[in-house]
């Protein structure tokens, strides 16, 4: 049995997260897209139990380590941290995270004032 010819792996992975986001209501579509992108592309490190969250717990005030709960993030800061890397976080390249997706993520996190 041969299955799954020529499937873009990244889009396959993204589907469940988008489905979850689409079920939300009360937020703007762009913000929902940013949330889905964040969870898909950054969640491995920056959700509750991620390595990035653990590292940040040692550096930021209580309750601020999860980026989705962080106050005062700006989209410019997010963009710079992602493209340049920060601390022990490697840079994420445009080829792996296109500018349009990063813009959505940065807007989503930057909206959590």
């Amino acid at each position, binding site marked *: *049995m*041969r*299955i*799954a*010819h*020529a*499937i*873009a*792996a*990244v889009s*396959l*992975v993204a589907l*469940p997260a988008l489905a979850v986001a689409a079920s939300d209501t009360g937020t703007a579509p762009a913000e929902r897209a940013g949330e889905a992108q964040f969870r898909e592309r950054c969640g*491995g*490190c920056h959700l509750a139990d*991620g*390595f990035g969250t*653990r*590292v940040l717990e*040692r550096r930021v005030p209580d309750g601020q380590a999860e980026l989705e709960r962080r106050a005062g993030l700006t989209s410019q800061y997010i963009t710079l941290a992602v*493209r*340049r*890397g920060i*601390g*022990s*976080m*490697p*840079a*994420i*390249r*445009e*080829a*792996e995270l296109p500018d349009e997706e990063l813009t959505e993520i940065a807007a989503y996190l930057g909206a959590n004032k």
Partner: protein
Amino acid sequence: MRELSAVQVERALAAFAGVVGTANVYSDAIGRAGYRDAMAPVDPATYEPRGAVAPASVEEVQAIVRLAGEHGLPLWPISRGKNFGYGGAAPRILGVVMLDLVRMNRILEVDVEQGYVLLEPGVGFDDLYHHLVDNKIPLWMSAPAHTWGSVVGNALERGVGYTPYGEHASKVCGLEVVTADGSILRTGMGAMPGSKTWQLFPYGFGPAWDGAFMQSNFGIVTKMGLWLMPEPENTVELRMALPNVEDLPAAIDALRPLKLDGTVAANPSFGNVIRGLASRGPRSQYYDGEGPMPPDVLERARKEAGIGHWNFSVRLFGDPRVNAINAERVRSAFAGKVPVEFTESQWNRGNPLRGSGSPTPSLGALGVVDWLGGAGAHLTFSPVSAFSGAEAWKQYTTVRGMFEDAGFDYYGGFTAGQRYLNHITMIILDRNDEGMRERANTLFSNLIRVAAENGWGEYRTHTLWYDEVAQTYGYNDGALRRWNEAVKDAVDPKGIIAPGKMGIWPRVDREGKA
């Protein structure tokens, strides 16, 4: 060494943009910074590329390679660029343009009956995992400690995982390669038009070349066949925490016959106490002083964490009746040789995968770089040891002593192959501490030298030390180096592909260096 002018590079990048579009060519400061070594033990700008190009198809790779040849511009191919501790995405030298294959991320074929996949280089372990699980495909991948990287890139670098298919390079079956003249080569049975066994029979007819494209710069791999393990019915995990440092040799000698006769097909990894502690939190929660942690502090921390000086698990995969027999063989082999017994657990098909021995997506292993705080990084020194308790002990005590003399905690472990041990150690450092960086660099060179004096060679190394390690493989006045150079000059006469990779320099750069 070649050094193209800015104008020459711009011309080449413009030509690349004609193939992939300007959106997929990167040459500004931010674009270049993304290819820096994220864990650089020196200024990462000293081995940053001139730019990057990211093709989406093999045809685009071919076109770029041809153009690179015309412009005399060397390319540095990467799959996903997550080779952390070994240089990450970064090239060996300034002056190259990255050939970033991350957009070539298709899983081209999964054959459940025959147990293989055919992948492009941009497919990550996470992608493959989700593809298999989401589509309920009863095949398991093997993966290294973190799953961010490329399946293809990891296998080509001879990375290791922890299932019976954990020697990844040995599970590669059939490559598609773009050669330096921009043509396509298929290895093994793939050389036969219409072959039905490209991903089944690894050798083909005549010389087998898959291995020649691993850790090399002879071509650019654009497709790779990889055998996957059928999902087992049952797994049994036997975990052990050895309470004494000196328990290591006996445990290794107890495991060896089980690996040789196939009782244990997976690759147990004996991780030391610092490896266990660093996965739990920063060093500052135990110790704030300079230098390596004192023995009494380390012992207190170990007991507090409830771990051993060496921690490992033997995992068995397959039929539960066979696993039960083999588990008894494992228990018997260790009984009386070490002062503790195994803690055991089982997994059965249908239960949640976590804890089964099937690798699930995780970046948790990267957290150890925060051991010292600051801008955490690690530099990985990976000598191979004979599968012998005495030899591993000698290697461990030698390497640990050198780590501690240089002011570092020894972080390491021995991962068991069938007849060897990969001794994977990490110098964990704060990149913002210049003095620490210098100590780490000096230590790394000393480790290479002392290892070679003892007959221990590295299986893989950081980009910056390719030449030093390659020189230790110098039998018969560097016969292997000269052979590699002869092949390089024949298949890539312009020196376009990854000059200096694994210490293999094309003639144009050798003459420039002389």
